[in-house]
């Protein structure tokens, strides 16, 4: 497909290097994409293992397995690893692989920056893991028992692990900002001739918005944790009321980042859906323009409703009313997105390969999570739900389908393109069903636990909460172990399988399907013309 017009010297220069140099020094978007995805896969298993330990401890009342600080440390690490190590790098991996191929560009605009933004991640992950293990060594201080929100003053009591965590967050943030700059520059400058912004594939649109969100909010988090570092070591009192500071200020800074972060995790997966659903419904996306508009609206409103995570801190009536109305209004653009997906399958000619199964699952379960989100947005009712297991159930229903299942859909959708092999469809479907059933058994009962009065982040609970915790823990084991199947399918597909055609799926549209499967090391060295 890609016609090569390179001279001999250039062609030689652009061959893939062999061995470890190929990966460590890589400036190739496909190799870096692969690195991101492998990194995310490792982190998925680390974060998943910590979640399974949490659920094992909660299987029965009493403290059986984990002492309270270790439990809270795992709660903290599960969140941080999944968000910063799992979902964000996986989404960046998809972006690296797909954006140049989708817009007809030879590579990312800033290949060396691309290399740097990936290779910061293993260092950051090392810091993060160190923050977890250091307390087990003599003189290592106490464990991080704060949850991922690291609210002061509790986070001021934690030992040196907290400092490792703060620097890990800085590194992760730098990596994300660099990757975002690269994606924005690529999308704005390197689209094939004729591809106007409103002709850009939806996955590119979602990443463009995500990248802007990241650049806007990551520095705020970095500032917040730096102030925390100063409070811990240099006697400032930003968050200490006794020194004229304000503990709630940290919460505002954290959630100014934390709420847009939800959309950062969500949007790339929405982008994947906008490709998968039309492909398997064999019919164009119902409303391209309204999707773009909805996404911009979500990102804009999403930036200004952060304090709905802190309704109980004692804000004024005016403030909570504003945050409540703003949050409820987000249901309009999000509803429009879900509607667009339903209207796309409506009167389509659907088949149900694994990516489509995940896509349909997302539409159903994400709607459920979104609706419990509207319940949580209502301030007086949130006086009850806040910090209970109901919240845990809610955000897992949003983030698992909304973010993780979307990434799974993307991986299954593009795996044939990346490897040149079709994955085993039977195993793929088996993975979908065990995964989704396990997920629902885990999180559905947690709604009831929350309503009955079980707070989140507790290591031990009264026996009145036993039944639902047993069910939830059994579900969690099914859910957690099902990911071994994913690993097996991916390895099997890389090693071999039915040869994938250029257009691996009958209904797939877009420039990436014009390329060979697997694509050459360098693609679109001559830009395609878009009509």
């Amino acid at each position: 497909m890609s016609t090569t017009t390179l001279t001999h010297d250039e062609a030689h220069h652009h061959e893939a290097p062999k061995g470890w140099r190929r990966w460590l020094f890589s400036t190739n978007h496909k190799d870096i994409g692969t690195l991101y995805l492998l990194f995310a896969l490792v982190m998925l298993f680390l974060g998943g293992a910590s979640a399974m330990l949490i659920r094992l401890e909660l299987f029965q009342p009493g403290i059986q397995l984990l002492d309270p600080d270790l439990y809270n440390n795992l709660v903290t690490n599960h969140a941080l690893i999944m968000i910063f190590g799992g979902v964000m790098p996986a989404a960046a991996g998809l972006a690296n692989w797909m954006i140049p191929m989708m817009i007809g560009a030879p590579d990312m605009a800033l290949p060396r920056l691309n290399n740097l933004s990936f290779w910061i991640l293993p260092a950051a992950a090392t810091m993060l893991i160190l923050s977890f293990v250091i307390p087990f060594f003599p003189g290592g201080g106490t464990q991080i028992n704060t949850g991922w929100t690291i609210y002061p003053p509790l986070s001021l009591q934690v030992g040196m692990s907290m400092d490792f965590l703060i620097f890990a967050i800085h590194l992760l943030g730098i990596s994300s900002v660099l990757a975002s700059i690269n994606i924005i520059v690529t999308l704005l400058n390197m689209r094939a001739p004729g591809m106007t912004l409103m002709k850009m594939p939806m996955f590119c649109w979602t990443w463009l918005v995500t990248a802007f969100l990241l650049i806007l909010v990551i520095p705020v988090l970095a500032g917040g944790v730096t102030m925390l570092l100063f409070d811990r070591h240099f006697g400032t009192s930003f968050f200490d009321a006794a020194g004229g500071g304000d503990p709630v200020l940290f919460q505002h800074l954290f959630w100014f980042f934390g709420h847009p972060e939800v959309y950062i995790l969500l949007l790339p997966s929405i982008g994947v859906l906008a490709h998968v659903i039309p492909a398997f419904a064999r019919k164009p996306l119902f409303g391209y323009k309204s999707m773009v508009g909805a996404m911009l609206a979500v990102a804009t409103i999403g930036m200004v409703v952060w304090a709905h995570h802190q309704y109980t801190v004692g804000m004024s009536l005016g403030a909570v009313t504003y945050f409540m109305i703003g949050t409820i209004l987000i249901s309009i653009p999000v509803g429009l997105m879900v509607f667009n997906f339903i209207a796309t399958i409506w009167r389509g000619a659907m088949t149900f390969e694994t990516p489509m199964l995940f896509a349909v699952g997302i539409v159903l379960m994400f709607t459920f999570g979104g609706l419990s989100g509207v319940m949580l947005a209502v301030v007086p009712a949130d006086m009850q739900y806040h910090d209970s297991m109901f919240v845990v159930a809610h955000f897992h229903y949003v983030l698992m389908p909304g973010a993780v299942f979307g990434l799974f859909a993307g991986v299954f959708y593009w795996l044939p393109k990346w490897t040149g092999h079709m994955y085993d469809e039977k195993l793929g479907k088996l993975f979908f069903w065990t995964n989704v059933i396990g997920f629902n058994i885990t999180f559905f009962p947690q709604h009831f636990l929350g309503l009955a009065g079980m707070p989140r982040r507790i290591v031990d609970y009264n026996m009145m909460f036993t039944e639902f915790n047993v069910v939830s823990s059994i579900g969690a084991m099914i859910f957690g172990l099902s990911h071994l199947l994913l690993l097996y399918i991916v390895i099997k597909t890389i090693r071999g399988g039915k040869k994938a055609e250029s257009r691996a799926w009958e209904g797939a549209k877009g420039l990436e399907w014009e390329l060979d499967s697997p694509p050459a090391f360098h693609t679109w060295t001559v830009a395609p013309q878009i009509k």
Partner: protein
Amino acid sequence: MHNNHTNEAYGFENKPLSKPRKHDRFPNLQLCLKGGLLTATTLTMGEAMAEYGLNFPEPAAGVAREIYGIHMMTMSIATILLVIVFAFVFYSLFYHRKSRGYEADQEFHNSWFGNWSWVIVPALVLGVDLTIAGKADTVLKSVWDVPKEENIMDVKITGHQWWWEFDYLDHDIKVESRFVPKDKSGDLYLREVDNRLVLPTGVKIRFLHTSADVLHAFWVPELAVKKDAIPGYVTETWAELDREGVFRGQCAEICGTWHSRMPIVVESVSPERFAAWTEGQKAIKVAAAAEASADKEWSMDDLLAKGKGLYETKCAACHQVNGMGLPPAFPALNGSAIATGPIADHLNIVIKGKEGTAMQPWGTLNDLEIAAIVTYERNSWDNKTGDVVQPADVKQAR
């Protein structure tokens, strides 16, 4: 002042008002497995669901009832919308498949519906939003606006790592409320305390929330009061209890190691019983003050006996009953430099606390209590200093 007796003599036995949940409740398990069906029946099932622990417990205050109402309303709206979405999706999944020979309608998005849906759908969603927000706004005002009444009863709630302090500001009573270990609380483990928050029905009560160390959150579902306890802040909530009973809750904001061990028990009693209770508390307080200020030399045995009880309620959560602590966060007292070194240093750390750690100042305890605790710590486990610390020594050290 700091009585350690339980306040249970006011008509309620040591069990929750709602049916205690025992192991023989497998019907519930089945109910939960049918969860998918449940959502469709939330409207009529509200009461029954509360009974089975599937919904909030029955409210015990006016504000809580309003909150319960809006919870049921939004849950019903959410359920209806969910059913509509599921119906459309499943219809489509069934009929619009290639295997049934269905041909995709390539022009669907260009129909009039395609052109106008981006207006129609947001308008419909906005309608739903306004319905919810309108009702929510009314309820929010009554929850947020604490009644401005002269005779409102004030209770200051202070969160500590890991116990609650209740100050009845109008009655000059202070209650310390701590978790009760499993051997004494049985089935109510983690839902039972030594001293309850006793409150009268039919009186508007303002709760003032604050914290002495890290964030906590006071949460009792029947009262629908949840507010963060923030050091340096005083935040307000209010309630007017409309039925008697025992209502149980827990700390809802993560506060460190023993976050799970901060239960809250509210005992709602008639105003008459409440008056009797306050009289009893005042008598206890007067007796304790008299005892502490009596200019008396205490024998080591008396101090040790007193000190053991005080140590096990106030100190053992961190330093452990066996004095071994939970290093590195909570150092051992057994053989420690402080507990076996100069008495002055020992008194100082107990009275003033230690900056930057979970060790808080205990200066609010009276001289006798501190003397008893310090004597106990210096003469227990392997600590054999033989020191007897008298209340007078404590007075001097303050």
